[in-house]
């Protein structure tokens, strides 16, 4: 337990100190998105890495959060702080209800069903022009404010987003180590065995699906308020694949792995700015390479490489 707390503190110090290294500048803006993507990757990892249930539609839940917040605040003038938890609740309940038929499916069929779901949500964003502004997007979403402070600069947004992200990391780490986390891993290994041992696999899968969707929705709300403009293009199938890549690269079933995955994949396109179009090729190659050569993700693969080549005595298996 102490080790986990220590890890979290190190994470917290790095996150809080990072802006000092980038005094303002463009990169700070990118780091805000790293925070949002970390939340999303963790949400997906809870489902995929722990419970072993794939989703290719998480960009849809992310988008629902963003649009619910955007529409209720920009068009109807509601208080953003009221809409945000409300949106998460609505998306969570929606996912809970959809979860009953969807999570009955397994493996490939589950992937296809969630993919279809994500695309239907995406089409609705595009077609309900009166509500969402359609393909040209929704603008004029207010920044968040707390006690007179408006979060309108990159630095303020950085701390806003990363406070949320840190809370999510903390909760996720705890969840993973709790009874629920163990039950999820049992389902991952063998659903039948888990049920024999008294785990209500069906309900717990649906619950984690709903939780995962709610976290994604929260990330969506925060995204809408920091960007102040949203359009359907951010919530399509490609973004679901990008999230999947983050989780797989970081390591399935590792919360900090998702953090690394999000850092890597969000910063990568920034460094490839001249070769902009290459990012899709690189995602594809990375996904394939990780599954083939490092199925445990970076957080397990790198220590394993280290043990194999640098420390031939190789004790300890480097679990993260």
């Amino acid at each position, binding site marked *: 337990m102490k080790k986990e707390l220590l890890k979290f503190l190190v994470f917290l110090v790095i996150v809080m100190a990072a802006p000092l290294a980038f005094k303002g500048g463009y990169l700070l803006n990118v780091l805000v998105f790293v925070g949002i993507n970390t939340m999303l990757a963790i949400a997906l990892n809870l489902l995929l890495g722990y419970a072993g249930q794939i989703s290719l539609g998480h960009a849809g839940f992310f988008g629902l959060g963003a649009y619910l917040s955007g529409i209720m605040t920009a068009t109807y003038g509601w208080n953003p702080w009221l809409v945000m938890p409300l949106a998460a609740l609505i998306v969570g309940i929606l996912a809970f209800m959809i979860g009953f038929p969807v999570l009955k499916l397994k493996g490939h069929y589950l*992937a296809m069903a969630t993919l*279809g779901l994500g695309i239907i949500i995406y089409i609705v964003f595009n077609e309900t022009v009166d509500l969402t502004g359609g393909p040209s997007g929704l603008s004029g979403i207010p920044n968040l404010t707390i006690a007179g402070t408006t979060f309108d600069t990159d630095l303020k947004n950085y701390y806003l987003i990363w406070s949320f992200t840190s809370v999510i990391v903390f909760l996720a780490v705890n969840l993973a180590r709790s009874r629920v986390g163990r039950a999820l891993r049992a389902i991952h290994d063998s659903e039948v065995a888990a049920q024999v041992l008294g785990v209500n696999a069906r309900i717990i899968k649906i619950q984690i699906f709903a939780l995962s969707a709610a976290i994604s929705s929260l990330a969506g709300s925060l995204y809408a308020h920091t960007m102040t403009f949203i359009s359907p293009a951010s919530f399509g199938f490609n973004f679901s694949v990008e999230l999947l890549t983050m989780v797989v690269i970081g390591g399935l079933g590792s919360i900090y792995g998702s953090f690394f995955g999000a850092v890597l994949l969000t910063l990568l396109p920034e460094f490839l700015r001249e070769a902009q179009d290459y990012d899709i090729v690189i995602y*594809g190659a990375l996904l394939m390479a990780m599954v083939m050569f490092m199925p445990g993700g970076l957080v397990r693969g790198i220590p394993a490489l280290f043990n194999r080549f640098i420390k031939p005595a190789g004790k300890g298996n480097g679990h993260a």
Partner: protein
Amino acid sequence: MQFDQILQYTLSGLSTGAIYALIGIGFSIIYNSTGIINFAQGEFVMLGGMLTLFFMGPLKLPLWAAIPCAVLISTLTGIVFERFAIRPLRQPTPINLVIITIGGSILMRGLAMLLWGKDTQSLPPFSGDEPIAIGGATILPQHIWILGITLVIIAINKLYFYHTISGKAMRACAYNRRAAGLVGIDVRRMVMFSFMISSAMGAVAGIIVAPLTMTAYDVGVMLGLKGFCAAIIGGMSSGAATVVGGLILGVLESLGAGLVSSGYKDAIAFIILLLILFIRPQGLFGKADSERV
């Protein structure tokens, strides 16, 4: 008037449906011999169209020569994909297979974009574009090409699966891979055949549809998903049921787009897909444990 419209939509729906059927059969062939849903299936459809354009444009081949070249290269891509990505997989769990085929799919799409750019292009129709009147509706010669070629391919498929040794061996693998291995069938080779056949079929589908709907580096996603939808309606059969599934989907989509709203046209396929997965995962016509192949 109303009747003519419905006839028109039905006819054009049938030809898109035939395309979905071809793609869907490709999904089923791989699924039946390996248990894999190949998320990269749509990319072979894209490759077919884009490669034909490439052979006709920069390489200046005539259409009749460009088509077999494009099918050949797509098929080789399918074989390479199976040999170097799927087969060496150390932990072939469903999730890993989903991830690796998705990885392969976006890699192919990305490479196509780098090689041939982002523009939408169109192939010339195979034999002119003089509309042909049928009743009160009109169709293009390309529609007839699509239906004809689809029929021929399905017939060849049937012959292959029921009247050749290797086709029978593939059916044996679909029933029970282990038992097929025990009677001396080289299961690995059959898996490679299945990738070969379905990438070739995907490529043909991509080529014959390109003169009608245009083609671009990213057409594979939607076409692939709709082909999968056809296969799901048909209960993952690689025969008549998937063809009917494709035709149903094509006609519903076309009627929906024409009579209800064209914006939601793509949503129709996915709503059908979800309904079938939720209510009848064995397909529209299947019994719970039906014959596949």
